[in-house]
């Protein structure tokens, strides 16, 4: 692996970040609006309720954590699609760049954007709702982040593999996949709250365990660590599968001449 080539792809996407309003909105704008709207709604419900339980901690915490899935997935997928929109993908793969280097660069960009979003939402939640994710979840944050990040990356790779197979007609899935997965991830409600058929899907998603443990920590001040380890194992399976899937789809795209027709 060449760090020069990885850095080249990272730079390519970082250069356009400041001069790309839509990318700025994806990283900062839309997550912030989500925080604002949910925060205001929950604050209103909290003020109307006699319960002493802090709904805002659970909901705002979940919203911030969910962005740890969304940002890397979107960056991994949109940055790939961007090369197709720009008709630049052939320049990249006619260069010495390897698939591994390319995917590594996409992951690094995803992590950079994820931290940018997480930081802005953390500051926003502290200012608007006096909610500090670090003091609320403390030492659990790294394991939550790693699990959510890995799942986001895996989803991104799968989307990219689908685009290699079916072309740009599949690009909508780059935005839709997190919306499809979110209801089954039990982000805002417990696993027991969803119908049994949906629970069968939810239990194979690592995100479900993270959000279940997040709520357990809020309610009971402890977590079942084996659930988080199981989530990590599931993530390993998803990650290996997604890399294999992307790689197979890439080679099939070369074999069937789809790579050159993607642009």
């Amino acid at each position, binding site marked *: 692996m060449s760090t*020069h080539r990885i850095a080249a792809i990272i730079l390519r996407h970082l250069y356009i970040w400041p001069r790309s309003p839509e990318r700025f909105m994806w990283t900062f704008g839309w997550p912030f609006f989500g925080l604002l709207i949910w925060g205001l709604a929950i604050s209103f419900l909290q003020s109307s309720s006699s319960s002493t339980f802090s709904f805002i901690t659970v909901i705002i915490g979940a919203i911030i954590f969910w962005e740890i899935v969304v940002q890397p997935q979107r960056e991994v997928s949109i940055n790939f699609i961007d090369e197709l929109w720009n008709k630049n993908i052939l320049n990249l793969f006619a260069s010495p760049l390897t698939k591994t280097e390319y995917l590594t660069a996409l992951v690094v960009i995803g992590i950079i954007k994820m931290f940018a979003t997480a930081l802005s939402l953390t500051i926003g939640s502290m200012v608007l709702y006096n909610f500090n994710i670090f003091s609320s979840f403390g030492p659990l944050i790294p394991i939550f982040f790693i699990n959510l990040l890995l799942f986001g990356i895996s989803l991104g790779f799968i989307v990219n593999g689908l685009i290699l197979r079916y072309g740009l007609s599949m690009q909508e899935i780059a935005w839709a996949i997190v919306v499809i997965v979110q209801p089954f991830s039990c982000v805002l409600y417990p696993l027991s709250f969803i119908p049994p058929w949906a629970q069968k899907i939810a239990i194979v998603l690592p995100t479900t365990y993270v959000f279940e443990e997040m709520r357990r920590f809020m309610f009971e001040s402890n977590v079942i660590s084996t659930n988080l380890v199981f989530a990590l194992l599931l993530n390993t399976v998803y990650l290996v599968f997604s890399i294999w899937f992307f790689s197979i789809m890439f080679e099939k795209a070369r074999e069937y001449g789809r790579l*050159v027709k993607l642009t």
Partner: protein
Amino acid sequence: MEHILEVKNLTKQFGDFTAVDNISFSVKEGEIVGLLGPNGAGKTTTIDMLLGLTTPTLGTINVFGLPFEEHRVKILKQMNFSAAYVNLPWRLKVWENLHIFGRLYEVEEYKQKIDTLITEFRLTALKDAITDTLSSGQLTSLYLCKAFINDPRLLLLDEPTAFLDPDVADLIRKYIKKKVKTDNMSVLFTSHNMAEVTEICDRVIFLNRGNIIAEDTPTGLAKRVKFCRVLLLFDVQRTKAVTLLKNYQYTFSFDEKEVQVDTEEENVGQLLGRLSLARLKYSQITIEKPTLEDFFLHAMRGRYEYT
């Protein structure tokens, strides 16, 4: 001279359709080879396979003496390409795009190399311009800067001067020739501009329906066309000349003043003798030798078309 590129029995099938059918050719060090053929001949599919963008169904590709698939990274570091159908990210600045490709090809002193290239391709004033704001000619120059950024030993160009004005196209042809002379670079070149191919290429490989149907120097291919064109300008007696040509069953076309006759070179004397015997006086005569374009048309149509 060493073979830089060796292609043996290269075949690409897409289902039942054979885009490239068992072709073999080579490119020597310091040689400019033209890959010609009509649309759908298999030129771009061949170039895509040489770049590793499409996997061959059968056959081998050796570049710099190494099998391509096993040594892809090592080979591609010393190759580059530019094609009319490939762009660079349009929201990046000119220097940013070149900076990225300088790093992708691991070019040492890439900043200095970028400055040299944008000077040579007259893009210095546009260094900080967003790529989207460039004219099509400036864009082509930028793509060629990218193609030369790693001083490639083998350069693949798919219609590189398609959108250029004659001045810039000439600049680029001269630059390619200079690089071939000074760096011993090899070039595989496709173009629909036959005059350009004749000027720049040492050798031409002619593809049609995925097969190589001819391989020779541009002049050698042109010479394969046995017909030459005789242009005769008649101030008067044009109708009489047309009647004569019809009677002798010449292949010809005509307008108000000029008559264009296609005949074998050895029969030109006979044609002029017949005109003289009939006391037909022309005010001007031009005899055009066959060109690469004539070969192209001849090969594609199998005959000339006349009015």
